[in-house]
């Protein structure tokens, strides 16, 4: 038994799943999960043994021989794909059933497996042409998953935007791989550090993969696509597919030489994405849209780490570069885990209440204690608070930045700025997630839709539990996961291969464990004391007001108001208000929403200008044959003149 054996088992599982998707949902479920499980075993095998699995059969597609390779970087991302993928698969079997969605559920299952097959192949392929083909298939299969519910207008619009943006990315990647193949003379991919003339190609890869990863300002497609897709699809989109952009960047910055400015650019884009991503998230009232903007933030944190690793790798500073890279890689896992958990939680809220609008929710913890508890755990993790996994990876990135500062080298000033921005991001994320938990799960129901709700069933609960357990495990025992991170970073920069465990990680894990135990102990002890002293219930203090209603509770918009005010220059919130008039005002209303500034204020106006120019050119096309003959004559005459003056031979 070898990794290859498990990978073929995985392929069989995925293909059987596609075949069973339309007729046998139970077989689909077990085949898919078995397939993902087999892939998981193969990935762990590679990460533990440190081997590279290669397979190059005598089999040609498009004139190129098939070449699969599973090394530690691929395996690292494959682990995330399989864990989040199996959680999402189980979740979808209750969330998107044939009963509720007779038209889209079977097709959804098929596209789901096609997407997984493609994602797995992207991680395995070591041939540029095949990579491009599969990348395009991956783009299309996720389009069909996003638009599963396509009788809604917003979903179609989101899908269209996704398709357009993704194809800009595909075009950039097409140029990238084509130039690469043209200069090297082969589509084969692999380490090529000695070819310094390939360095400028990095910019094409940055735009192509950056669009997919959703880094600011290339994230325009991400919020609407993630918000409008079914929640199990959102979990995969946010947890896994945007990480394919990160995979591309990690893979090709590891294999190809990069220009001098590359690391600085990546770190700067990362810092901008982190702060602005969370600022936009604070302005959102739609639960899933808010979570989508947090993906932009977390991709930013990952890129800060990767950027500093690139700077260190270029300047030969292994010590802090390694920490930054380890933080970035671990954050890939962590973000995948807690963001999938949060999207699944949001899905279960949506399933129960039928709305994503936070101002209509509230008090859900009573009816949905599991969802509330697990979502809150994910919130603590994503806010980067100890003792969970988000803190571990952010801490590694911070350590890298602080070491870069104290080394007083060229990167120090950038590290100072990044560390401060990272701290601001952390505090903003905390504000955002206390808002979400407080408004959605605590307090009293703000509308009828939040009143008569039910907890989700075990097939939706178990995936959330698994993801939450993974978050907890990485937080409490980070040492166990270090070998995987070390193996992947050794492939990225072989010079850093002999990386000893950064000593404090074990201590941090022990401190986390002690803290977690003390948290539980203190909470139980305080509750015992409260019960011992006697307990009575009364209404919330409302300043003596006689007729309070649940709608008088603080809203998401007001909660974030102070901070969104600071960021109004970029958020550009839109207000619609009817002020109370007359002595006896009858009607007044106030509404504020934050739209996607980059899309509406930059991309759409630019698109409008292009359309205007194009439509003025279109006047040439009017259907009058005489004029067309005139064009022909003018063209021929121009050609004749060119030949006459010997410009063209």
């Amino acid at each position: 038994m070898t990794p290859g054996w498990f990978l073929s088992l995985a392929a069989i599982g995925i293909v059987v799943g596609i075949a069973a998707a339309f007729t046998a949902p139970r077989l689909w479920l077990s085949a898919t999960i078995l397939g993902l499980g087999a892939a998981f075993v193969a990935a762990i095998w590679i990460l533990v043994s440190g081997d590279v699995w290669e397979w190059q059969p005598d089999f040609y597609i498009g004139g190129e021989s098939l070449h699969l390779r599973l090394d530690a970087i691929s395996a690292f991302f494959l682990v995330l794909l399989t864990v989040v993928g199996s959680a999402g698969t189980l979740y979808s079997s209750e969330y998107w059933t044939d009963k509720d969605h007779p038209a889209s559920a079977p097709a959804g299952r098929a596209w789901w497996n096609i997407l997984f097959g493609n994602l797995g192949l992207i991680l395995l392929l070591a041939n540029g042409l095949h990579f491009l083909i599969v990348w395009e298939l991956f783009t299309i299969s996720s389009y069909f998953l996003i638009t599963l519910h396509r009788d809604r207008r917003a979903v179609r619009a989101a899908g269209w935007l996704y398709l357009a943006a993704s194809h800009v990315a595909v075009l950039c990647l097409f140029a990238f791989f084509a130039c690469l193949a043209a200069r090297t003379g082969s589509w084969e991919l692999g380490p090529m550090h000695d070819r310094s003339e390939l360095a400028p190609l990095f910019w094409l890869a940055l735009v192509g993969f950056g669009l997919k990863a959703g880094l600011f300002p290339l994230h325009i497609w991400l919020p609407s696509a993630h918000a409008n897709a079914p929640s199990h699809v959102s979990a995969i989109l946010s947890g896994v597919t945007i990480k394919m952009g990160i995979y591309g960047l990690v893979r090709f910055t590891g294999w190809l030489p990069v220009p001098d400015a590359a690391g600085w650019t990546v770190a700067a884009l990362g810092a901008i994405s982190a702060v602005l991503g969370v600022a936009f998230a604070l302005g959102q009232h739609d639960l899933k849209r808010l979570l989508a903007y947090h993906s932009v933030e977390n991709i930013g944190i990952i890129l800060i780490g990767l950027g500093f690793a690139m700077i260190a790798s270029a300047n030969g500073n292994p010590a802090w570069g390694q920490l930054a890279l380890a933080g970035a890689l671990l954050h890939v896992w962590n973000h995948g885990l807690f963001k999938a958990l949060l999207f699944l939680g949001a899905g279960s809220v949506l399933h129960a209440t039928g709305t994503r609008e936070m101002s209509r929710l509230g008090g859900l913890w009573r009816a949905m204690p599991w969802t509330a508890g697990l979502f809150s755990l994910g919130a603590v993790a994503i806010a980067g608070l100890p003792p969970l996994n988000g803190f571990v990876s952010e801490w590694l990135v911070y350590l890298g930045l602080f070491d870069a500062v104290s080394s007083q080298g060229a990167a120090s000033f950038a590290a100072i700025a990044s560390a401060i921005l990272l701290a601001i991001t952390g505090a903003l994320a905390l504000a955002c997630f206390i808002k979400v938990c407080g408004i959605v799960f605590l307090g009293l129901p703000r509308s009828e839709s939040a009143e008569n709700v039910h907890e989700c069933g075990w097939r939706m609960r178990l995936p959330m539990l698994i993801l939450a357990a993974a978050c907890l495990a990485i937080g409490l025992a980070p040492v166990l996961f270090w070998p995987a991170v070390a193996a992947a970073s050794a492939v990225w920069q072989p010079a850093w291969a002999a990386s000893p465990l950064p000593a404090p990680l074990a201590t941090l894990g022990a401190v986390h464990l002690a803290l977690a135990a003390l948290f539980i102990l203190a909470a139980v002890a305080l509750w015992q004391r409260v019960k011992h002293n006697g307990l009575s219930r009364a209404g919330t203090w409302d300043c003596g007001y006689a007729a309070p209603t649940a709608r008088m509770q603080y809203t998401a918009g007001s909660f974030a108001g102070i901070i969104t005010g600071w960021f109004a220059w970029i958020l550009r919130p839109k207000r619609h208000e009817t002020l109370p008039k007359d002595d006896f005002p009858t009607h007044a209303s106030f509404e504020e929403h934050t739209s996607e500034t980059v899309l509406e204020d930059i991309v759409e106006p630019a698109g409008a200008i292009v359309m205007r120019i194009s439509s003025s050119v279109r006047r040439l096309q009017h259907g009058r044959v005489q004029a067309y003959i005139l064009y022909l004559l003018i063209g021929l005459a121009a050609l004749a003149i060119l030949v006459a003056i010997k410009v063209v031979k």
Partner: protein
Amino acid sequence: MITALYILCRLMVWLLLAPLLPGIINKVKAWVAGRRGPPVLQLYFDLAKLWQKSVVLSTAVSPAHVAGPAVAWVALAGAAMLLPVGSAGAALSFRGDSLLFIYLLALSRFCIAGAALDTGSAFEGMGAAREVSYAVIAEAAVITALLTLCVQTGSVSLGSMLAPSAGAGAALLAAGLFGVLLAENSRVPFDDPNTHLELTMVHEAMILDHSGPPLAVILHGAALKLLLFSVLLTETVLPLGSLSLLQAIGALFAAVLAVTVVVGLVESLLARLAFRRVPLLLTTSFLLCLFALLVAWKGSKP
């Protein structure tokens, strides 16, 4: 086992001394106003009484209302264990513990704000919103202060970062951190701990619905946080690491007392700011820390 006992003893000293600080501040305020004022030990009496009292819980609250204060208190006590005392070092010290320190404070903020939102009260929502919003700038200031110390000492562990004095930039850093201390502990001019108008409070607004033991835990946690920030401020300025242990402890006590008295004087002599001015003042604190960082940078360049 002995290590555990040692940590426990140090923790007890922190926990026992913390409620003294608000008492001293109140005494200073009373003196300046020409009153006799409550006894310095008043908070100890209050806490003892609250711990015995029965609890009134809002009908809206979840278990987070009681669990939140408990977790926040443990987080603050944990942060206290990371702070060194002169040459004795910290009870718990490792590379990167300075970041854990900041994030433990953040965790306590998350828990208290969560417990506040739990009641569904608009007042407590306002308090929580203000707390988490102002903390954004405060956290930027604290991390800048840590970066200054990191540049100065080349270390990321509080034990060695706080041992020497912050050098030339010490005055700037002290001023910046003092602003953060006032803001994070809800003192005048950022917030008024004595106010009785729900609309204008920050910290007090968040705990309107707490009573009995959970309130005692919150009040004790707040006192602990004040002590934490006073010690942090003192240790950045004074070179406690170079003194003998007894001298260091003596200097630490004297300096924390001085900080507390200054807080009391500020509270007596200044009015609180309008809310829209709070971010400006906090940004000033952040800039002071940033200037301290630049001074440290220039100073440490060979």
